[in-house]
């Protein structure tokens, strides 16, 4: 990140000369005023120069990458973070390294926590919602396939026996995978019951899905 400290007659002039040095425009930087400066008598005596620090704004991609890499480093893990690109308004990050199993955690719990924190830290920093999706060694895709297989077995049971079946408690992302799978099913539907860590998906006949049921 490029940054420079600069003095000037007043804050505006100090910022202007800093921008010239950095070769950036006002929109591309954050300004921190170190000293507002004072104009002296007749603008000549006893005045104090203004001082500012002008820093280049990080792109959102670089910001979330830095947050994640720093957290993993401070956790004592040897890992590399790569920005894979964007999917809608989500920034996709991928972690590679030695401690992948621990970074993923049980049922992806650590990965989910990292995602929550990095997303929130970035949102608070830029004062706008930033969404991130963090994967490690293709875990998210593998998890999605595993959940789809489990859901498919349950769908088969529900179709064959005509009874309602409940899946084990799952994270919001896993529940979304199940709901998506059932979205276009001709006869069956799904909805969620329970709170927080105990929230689980029910698969049943489409007409038995409560009208006011929330999918999430």
């Amino acid at each position, binding site marked *: 990140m490029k940054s420079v400290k600069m003095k000037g007659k007043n804050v505006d002039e100090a910022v202007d000369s800093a921008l010239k040095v950095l070769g950036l425009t006002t929109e591309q930087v954050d300004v921190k005023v170190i000293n507002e400066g004072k104009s002296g008598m007749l603008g000549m005596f006893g005045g104090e120069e203004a001082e500012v620090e002008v820093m280049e704004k990080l792109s959102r991609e670089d910001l979330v990458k830095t*947050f994640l890499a*720093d*957290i993993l480093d*401070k*956790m*004592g*893990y040897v890992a590399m973070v790569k920005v894979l690109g964007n999917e809608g308004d989500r920034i996709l990050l991928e972690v590679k390294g030695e*401690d992948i199993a*621990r*970074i993923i*955690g049980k049922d992806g*719990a*650590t990965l*989910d*926590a*990292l995602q*929550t*924190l990095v997303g*929130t*830290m970035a949102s*608070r*920093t830029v004062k706008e919602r930033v969404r991130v999706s963090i994967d490690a060694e293709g875990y998210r895709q593998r998890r999605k396939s595993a959940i789809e297989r489990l859901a498919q077995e349950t769908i088969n049971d529900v179709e064959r026996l005509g009874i309602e079946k409940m899946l084990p408690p799952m994270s919001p992302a896993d529940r979304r995978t199940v709901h998506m799978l059932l979205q276009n099913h001709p006869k069956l539907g799904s909805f969620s019951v329970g709170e*927080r860590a105990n929230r689980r998906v029910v698969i049943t006949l489409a007409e038995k899905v409560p009208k006011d049921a929330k999918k999430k």
Partner: protein
Amino acid sequence: MKELVEYIVKALVDTPDEVNVAQTEGESVTILEIRVAQDDIGKVIGREGRIANAIRTITKAAAAKNKRRVTVEILTQGEEARKPKTEGG
């Protein structure tokens, strides 16, 4: 551990200068006391404790590397940590 928590919490609050993390080492447990400005406490806890839980999960994962357990308390500046109840106290 303290550095990890400080780094995360400072990026979450409005007043990073008032973030204070104290780390106490027990035999097998590490206790982390996070203190933030009154107005920032909700930002560290999050809706339904979502952020506090994420911080706990991360510290747990970091501590597990050294086979240690960890507890995290989030308090405001000047607030005393909850003491275990003592008889006749």
